[in-house]
């Protein structure tokens, strides 16, 4: 076992993947705080599922597995899905949850249809395309890590720069407008960062479970602090830990899928926080009472 570890750590590709999972985990944990507080958990789940047809479609079109190409497709279908969801909510009597459910399942189903088309009708090396469903760290190469890393850092940078605006608009939208924050721009920016994190996360975590890397660390972090700044850092750290442990365990133990391991780690962190968190944990609440 130990020798396995050593060889793994010595493999340069694995080190790259580790860095990638760390950055991805941190940025999605940080952005996830705003997703959670704005009650957009389910809509981001819909957006994540909706990336699948985009990935498959770009592969059919260009017969190319290069990550940036596939991710452009993912972005387009994800945005399309979001606007469909909003259209349904606006124009029919269906409520948010039904609108998300409809779009999520139809887009995902169509994605599966396209994937099966690829498997049946296309030659060439298509291995790794269906790893987008549950995520596979092993399918990630150094170039992919560049994409993931650069986008993650960019997301983090913008989050730091506009933290106050994100904070204020999330807490009190109308007031923020009143004090001169360009609220529509800030909303758009935050939304773009969310899309970016989802899109770069699908290769490692998979479209089915990426939403967990957004909201579970945020939810866990909420139990440790009453300050949004600290919450964002804690959530990012939880996300990074989850990414790291998930990637390592799935690489050491054969057949273990990466995405579910990342999510499971995050879930464990959540349950620990739910019970023992300093400010809101159930045990603390009991003791105070």
């Amino acid at each position, binding site marked *: 076992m130990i020798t396995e570890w050593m060889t793994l750590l010595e493999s340069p590709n694995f080190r790259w993947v580790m860095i990638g999972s760390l950055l991805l985990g941190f940025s999605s944990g940080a952005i996830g705080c705003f997703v959670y507080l704005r009650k957009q958990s389910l809509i981001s789940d819909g957006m994540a599922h909706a990336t699948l047809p985009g990935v498959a479609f770009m592969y059919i079109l260009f017969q190319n597995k290069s990550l940036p190409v596939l991710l452009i497709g993912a972005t387009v279908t994800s945005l399309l899905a979001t606007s469909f969801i909003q259209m349904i909510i606006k124009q029919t009597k269906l409520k948010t949850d039904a609108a998300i459910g409809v779009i999520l399942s139809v887009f995902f189903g169509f994605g599966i249809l396209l994937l099966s088309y690829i498997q049946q009708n296309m030659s060439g090396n298509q291995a790794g395309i269906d790893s987008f469903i549950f995520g596979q760290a092993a399918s990630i190469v150094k170039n992919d890590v560049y994409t993931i890393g650069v986008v993650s850092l960019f997301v983090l940078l913008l989050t730091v720069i506009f933290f*106050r605006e994100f904070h204020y608009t999330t*807490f009190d939208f109308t007031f923020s407008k009143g*004090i001169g924050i360009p609220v529509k721009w800030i909303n758009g920016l935050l939304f773009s960062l969310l899309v970016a994190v989802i899109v770069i996360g699908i290769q490692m975590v998979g479209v089915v479970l990426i939403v967990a890397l957004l909201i579970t660390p945020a939810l866990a972090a909420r139990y440790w602090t009453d*300050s*949004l700044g600290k919450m964002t850092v804690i959530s990012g750290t939880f996300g990074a830990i989850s990414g790291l442990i998930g990637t390592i365990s799935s690489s050491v133990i054969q057949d273990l899928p990466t995405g579910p391991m990342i999510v499971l780690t995050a879930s464990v962190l959540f349950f620990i926080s739910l019970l023992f968190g300093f400010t809101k944990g159930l045990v603390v609440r009991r003791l105070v009472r």
Partner: protein
Amino acid sequence: MLALSVHNLSVQYQQQKVLENVHFQVPKGSITGIIGPNGAGKSTLMKAILGLVPITEGKVDVLEQPFTQQMDLIGYVPQRSEVDWDFPINALDVVLMGRYKHFKRFRPISKQEKDLAMTFLKEIGMETYANRQISQLSGGQQQRVFLARALAQNTPIYFMDEPFAGVDAATEKMMIQLMKQWKNDGKTVIIVHHDLQTVQEYFDHVLLLNKKTIGCGKTRDVFHPQNIERTYGGSLTFPPSIAGNSL
């Protein structure tokens, strides 16, 4: 001088008209109440003026200038139900929001600003609660914090959406006193209000609204039974609070 003047403002959701040709004027240095039944479009009117709800028609002038929305003229105290009380934020942080335009990017908020925010909390008797998360305050205390934020903002005009809902009598009295003080300083306060009993006591001007302007002007000229009945459409025999609960 007019603090606010709204001409023929209409707002439409899908095919439904929420506000229709609303027009009214609010003189500077007044306390104006917006009165009307549930669903009369009171909150929508505030949001439309702030540019948060698209206006189908009409024009809004603030301090006799066309409202450009980037100006820092209007302070806002939200309706209680619109606040996420579990949000990770404490009383002092809420007040600090009012000082937003004085903050520098990339720098933590200065000691000076924090001290200033503390003086606003002190002014409304909340300085000992500065580090409390907002859900751990009583209804009255929560409203005081938002009032302190309005103080910190120091704008010529304030919008308040049902500020007295869920507030204890002492806080309500204090709030009214504070508003009267603002009025004497030449500021304008516009309040969405529910309780018809206190209208004459609190407001010098009123807008009676039910999708359209029913009446607008000095309270003693406009707030008479005939207009009130037109506003509430005869449903006054069943006050909205009771009619709403019968389900």
